[in-house]
């Protein structure tokens, strides 16, 4: 039966073409269309002019520095939580890790405002302590360092999630062997745990870095007062003065961001190259460290961090939702629930927005899980020379500010689709497509790093048992990378649940998302309503997480990230 013969590739023939065409359709095509729109600019002298503007370069430098230091901060905070909550005998793990998911859910601009409020002249906390700076004193957060710090806070949970799955797959006996070799816990961490979880750390760092590159809310609030522009805020201000060059300009600026993302990817590949993380004879047992007298201080520190990152901004949000107008001091007298009443019972848009966002976030999360597993499999097991290019193509859309993605999607999808003759523009499907493109990188990263750690023998054993590609995917691979898959779903869900800038241009009547609804309320001066809606979103996420908790017993082990 010579026709049975195939290359020794472990994947079905359609897989690579499928992944390539998915990426081509959703990631490459829109960006190519954007470049085409700006092509006249690119080839006229305008592009050069743009590159000669010092403002562009300083924005590029700001983007790089803020994202880099933001990544460092996120890796430090997220890494600390991941290590403490997966490997150490910290008490209250469940609650700590449960709460640690939530800072991502607080919209970046809200987070930034809360921090400004917390540390500025009007800070209730500082006022109570009597150390509030006088009105008009300079705000230390209005700086590159401030932006980086908030990136760190905002993206630490992403690092935590990406790293956690890798830590769970660490071989227990490898850690034991190092201990017995005489290595102190600190050395074990440095020599064994960190290097072995490098794929997870790098995945988390990359997500944090790229999230910083594309972030708009934080530099808009913290950077602009100090005239610190990053590429997204620069793009935004270019859009504000819309002219004939705008598409060309944003194409050029996007290309710069794309280059940064690709450079980041290169560094990442370099860091991982030539190493092997396959855990031989995966045991499934995980290790723990006894902290002894360090436990109490560490716990206190974790709770303090959590307070600053989550509880303080969340209270700022809650109090903003309870006062009738901005600047009114919250007291029993001034507090009212009218904003909630308005949001819940009078504004019909709220319900639509909840429904839309839940649909979008859920579909994106699970859709990208499927695609992420397939693409991750291709990228890690595949032998094609094109995998490097493919992962770059996947990376770029996430790094671009949402507004660029949405412009690109409008450009491609505003006209009816060829052949079919229908247009998805103006429907919810275009938002979904844009989410798929934007968040593929987020969904993919944890899965790829988990696949890297997997002992190939486990899959081989399944193949020899006669399991076809689909069988072993469902029976072996997915359950084995379940923690990473869970992380991928939760990350994408959280990010797309309060996503703003992608849907901002793509929504139309009836397809508002929560992010759009909050932004529009905020933008039109209804801060109380915007805050109330944000609080409701956070509560909704908490409820969803609790539902997940109830189902946890029926899910594969490790899927629910706050359970051990």
């Amino acid at each position, binding site marked *: 039966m010579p026709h049975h013969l195939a290359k020794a590739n472990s994947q079905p023939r359609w897989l690579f073409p499928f992944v390539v065409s998915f990426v081509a359709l959703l990631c490459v095509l829109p960006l190519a269309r954007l470049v085409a729109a700006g092509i006249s600019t690119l080839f006229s002298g305008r592009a050069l002019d743009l590159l000669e503007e010092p403002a562009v370069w300083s924005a590029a430098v700001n983007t790089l520095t803020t994202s880099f230091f933001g990544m460092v901060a996120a890796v430090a905070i997220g890494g600390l939580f991941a290590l403490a909550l997966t490997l150490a005998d910290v008490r209250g793990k469940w609650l700590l890790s449960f709460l640690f998911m939530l800072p991502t859910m607080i919209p970046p601009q809200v987070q930034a405002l809360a921090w400004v409020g917390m540390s500025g002249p009007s800070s209730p906390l500082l006022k109570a302590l009597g150390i509030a700076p006088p009105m008009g004193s300079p705000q230390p957060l209005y700086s590159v360092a401030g932006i980086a710090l908030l990136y760190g806070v905002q993206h630490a949970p992403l690092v935590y999630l990406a790293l956690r799955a890798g830590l769970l797959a660490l*071989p227990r*006996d*490898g850690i*034991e*062997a*190092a*201990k*017995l*070799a*005489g*290595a*102190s*816990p600190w*050395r*074990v961490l440095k*020599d*064994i745990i960190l*290097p*072995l979880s*490098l794929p997870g750390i790098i995945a988390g760092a990359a997500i944090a870095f790229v999230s910083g590159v594309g972030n708009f809310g934080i530099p808009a609030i913290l950077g602009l007062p100090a005239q610190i522009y990053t590429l997204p805020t620069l793009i935004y201000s270019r859009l504000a003065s819309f002219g004939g060059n705008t598409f060309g300009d944003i194409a050029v600026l996007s290309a710069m961001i794309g280059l940064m993302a690709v450079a980041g990817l290169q560094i990442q590949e370099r860091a991982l190259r030539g*190493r*092997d*993380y*396959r*855990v*031989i*004879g995966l*045991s499934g047992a995980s290790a723990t460290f*006894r902290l002894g007298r360090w436990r109490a201080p560490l716990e206190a520190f974790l709770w303090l961090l959590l307070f600053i990152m989550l509880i303080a901004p969340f209270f700022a949000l809650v109090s903003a939702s309870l006062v009738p107008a901005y600047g009114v001091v919250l007291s029993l007298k001034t507090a009212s629930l009218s904003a909630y009443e308005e949001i819940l019972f009078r504004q019909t848009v709220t319900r639509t927005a909840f429904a839309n966002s839940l649909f979008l976030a859920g579909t994106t999360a699970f859709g990208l899980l499927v695609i992420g597993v397939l693409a991750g499999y291709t990228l890690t097991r595949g032998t094609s020379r094109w995998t490097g290019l493919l992962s770059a193509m996947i990376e770029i859309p996430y790094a671009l500010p949402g507004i660029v993605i949405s412009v690109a999607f409008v450009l491609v999808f505003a006209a009816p689709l060829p052949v079919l003759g229908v247009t998805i523009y103006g429907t919810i499907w275009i938002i979904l497509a844009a989410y798929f493109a934007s968040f593929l990188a987020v969904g993919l990263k944890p899965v790829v790093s988990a696949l890297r750690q997997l002992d190939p023998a486990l899959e081989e054993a399944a193949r020899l048992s006669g399991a076809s590609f689909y069988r072993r995917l469902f029976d072996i691979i997915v359950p084995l990378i379940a923690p990473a898959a869970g992380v991928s779903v939760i990350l994408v869900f959280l990010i797309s649940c309060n996503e703003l800038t992608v849907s901002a241009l793509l929504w139309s009547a009836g397809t508002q998302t929560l992010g759009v609804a909050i932004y529009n309320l905020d933008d039109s001066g209804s801060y109380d309503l915007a805050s109330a809606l944000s609080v409701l979103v956070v509560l909704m996420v908490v409820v969803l997480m609790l539902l997940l908790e109830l189902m946890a017993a029926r899910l594969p082990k490790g899927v629910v990230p706050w359970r051990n």
Partner: protein
Amino acid sequence: MAKLILHKLCKDYGTGRPAVNDVSLDIREGGFLALLGPSGCGKTTVLRMIAGFETPSDGSILLGERVLADASGVVPPEKRNMAMVFQSYALWPHMTVAANVGYPLKVRGISGERYRAKVTDALKTVRLEAYAERRPADLSGGQRQRVALARCLVTAPDVVLLDEPLANLDRHLRQEMEETFREFHARSGATMIYVTHDQAEAMALATDVAVMSEGRLLQVASPAEIYARPEGRLVGGLIGQGVVLTLAERGADRRDLEWNDILARLISGQSGEPSMDVLVRPQDVVLGGDGLPAEVVGVLFEGERYALRLKLGDGRLLRAYSRTACIEGERVAVTITAGWRL
């Protein structure tokens, strides 16, 4: 270096059946203990408690005067100065072979020329000089095991724990490695505990042999002693290839039985009589001459000789060796030159 004392050691993983149950054992300073026992009897668990990876559910472990583990707490593994070959090797996949082997040295602050010399030395002993820069994933099973061995022997530990360290090596390497252990033991004076399924290995290496079964310690003695004078059916069945015959007791007072004693009881057994267990090893079953008639029911070629299973007239089975080939069904005469009452 000092005496290693296990005192009423217990370990229950919470599965209902304790994995280790009330094990008390003194291993003298610089002793070489072989731990034998069927698969799943708790050998690895004992080693893991000695190394400090598992906390005993009960009992204590002492190294000389120093309490390593008891109800009040445990000394962490990194402070015990022990070394171990893991049954699963536990190599670090992100390090090269040389880095794996050198890691315990690095931790001890040894570097430069001395580090390199020691690593090269250790790799030479396990015949892996040429593989220093490989990653564990690119090695064969036996090569991985040898890396684990080199890593274990590269420092000067007080206690060396070996969990089936030679299971994946061929006979030649095995003999070489045994030699290495013996040398290492003599040179360093470390206390060694050696888990193995290969009895010849255990007997050849150890100064003491301990036999476990189902979490309990059955007997500890020197190799010659335990081979010659096993206590109880379990140990008797486990050590050597012998079969256990149930014979009428009938006033036997010695434990060493001779052909006459056995013959008398073999031919005239009555049910209801008090009985005793007698261990008969195959090398004590001699074919030919005028013994009892038996039928060959199984012949296995072992290279050097044939291992036979024989059936006596009354259905009892015996094992024997033969230098020449036999055919199944052949009838032979057997004499049992020695038996040991368990």
